[in-house]
């Protein structure tokens, strides 16, 4: 046991740069695998509902707008999303119809504004060809 064993370390830090980051003024970069908010590329979605089935927070909702025209509506409830990116893993298309962005400042004062929805026509299974002429993506939110 030694008196003031910590002293040299303390005094050394008096002349060091702070370890903390002055957050709202300076920002750190996110890593490349960061899981932000999911979003849909509607021209690629084949409505297999794999994302809806596997979403642990039940935050993805797909409903048929018009069965005959194959028009569907996907709602992502971002207020429920837990940012696990399982929807991206579950998505069977290449390239993936479900994508994830790298934004992290997600706070909002109204949870209704966090809801995002897309109304789109179901894509055909081979998405390598250019998007079908009927495919009209119109994000309504």
């Amino acid at each position, binding site marked *: 046991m030694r008196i003031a064993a*910590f*002293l040299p370390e*303390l005094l050394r*830090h*008096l002349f060091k740069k*702070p370890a903390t980051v002055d957050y709202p003024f300076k920002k750190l970069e996110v890593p490349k695998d960061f899981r932000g908010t999911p979003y849909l590329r509607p021209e690629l979605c084949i409505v297999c509902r794999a994302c809806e089935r596997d979403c642990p927070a039940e935050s993805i909702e797909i409903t048929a707008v018009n069965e005959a025209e194959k028009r569907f509506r996907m709602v992502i409830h971002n207020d429920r999303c837990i940012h696990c990116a399982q929807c991206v893993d579950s998505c069977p298309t290449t390239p993936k119809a479900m994508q994830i962005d790298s934004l992290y400042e997600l706070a909002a004062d109204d949870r209704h504004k966090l809801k995002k929805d897309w109304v789109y026509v179901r894509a055909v299974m081979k998405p390598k060809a250019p998007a079908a002429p009927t495919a009209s993506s119109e994000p309504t939110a």
Partner: protein
Amino acid sequence: MAVLRTLLYLVVYPGIIFLFAYSTFCEWFDRKIYARLQNRMGPTHTGRFGLLQPIADFFKLLAKEDVVPEAADKRLFSVLPAIGLAVVSTAGLLLPVWNFDLAVPGWTSFPGDIIVMLYLLSLPTLVLFLAAWSSTNIFSTIGGARVLTMLFGYEVPLFLAVLSPAILAGSWRLAEIAAFYQHRPLLLLVNLLGFFVALIAVQAKLERTPFDIPDAETEIVGGTFTEYSGKKLALFRLTFDIELVVASGLLAAVFLGGFPGGAVLGFIQFVPKTLFVVFLLSLIRALTARIRVDQVISFAWKVLTPLAVLQLLATILLKGFLT
């Protein structure tokens, strides 16, 4: 003229305005040093370098809701913060910074003012105990019991350590003690041991780590302050800030040679000397973990008091040798 001087003394310097401004500055200094020692930033954004942060905190608390517990003794509960503030501010007036005449004792500087000051500095502890007791909260009660228990530990070494330079100087008047050591600066080295004893005792008096036992938040929530909120808490916090200034000023006057040379020169010496003491206090705060109340008592009686007695003996022997 004398009336104006007295008014200036009471209100501006070193009266309430100076004490308020300088105590918030000392709190900022303490927080900044503490943060930098821990590799953090400390207050940064309120005012330049965050200088206005303690004042902002003070005004924020003033605007907060003030809750008085139903079971508490309401009159006592409400009046205690004001008493505490008044007591430490009065002690602040006795600091020999300005407006004292070495030849003629006045009401701000008189033989025995060191004793008066030490007693005035003891009163906030009693105020704190009464505040804790009148809150009736179980955590406050434990905190109050701890305040008193600690008082019995640190008070004796503090008195012994502060009085030994006075014995060497042969005066019970702060201004004369300071003047004595200004003439013989080498004698200050004799009191080095006493300075460290007094420093640790002051740390305990101010209830800062390692002696923040009465308001140890991880043990007894807010301890003595559990039930205090809003304006009353703001006043208590200000009390502790001013006590920090006054206690460091006392140590600077007794152990570091005081502040001679009138208002301006005195001020120029007052600031670095007190900041040095505050820095040492911050260093102790960063260096240690909180100890238990039984450990405080045994530490105070087994280590601090013998050291203070040793200092006293050395001083008496030296005094006999000098005369």
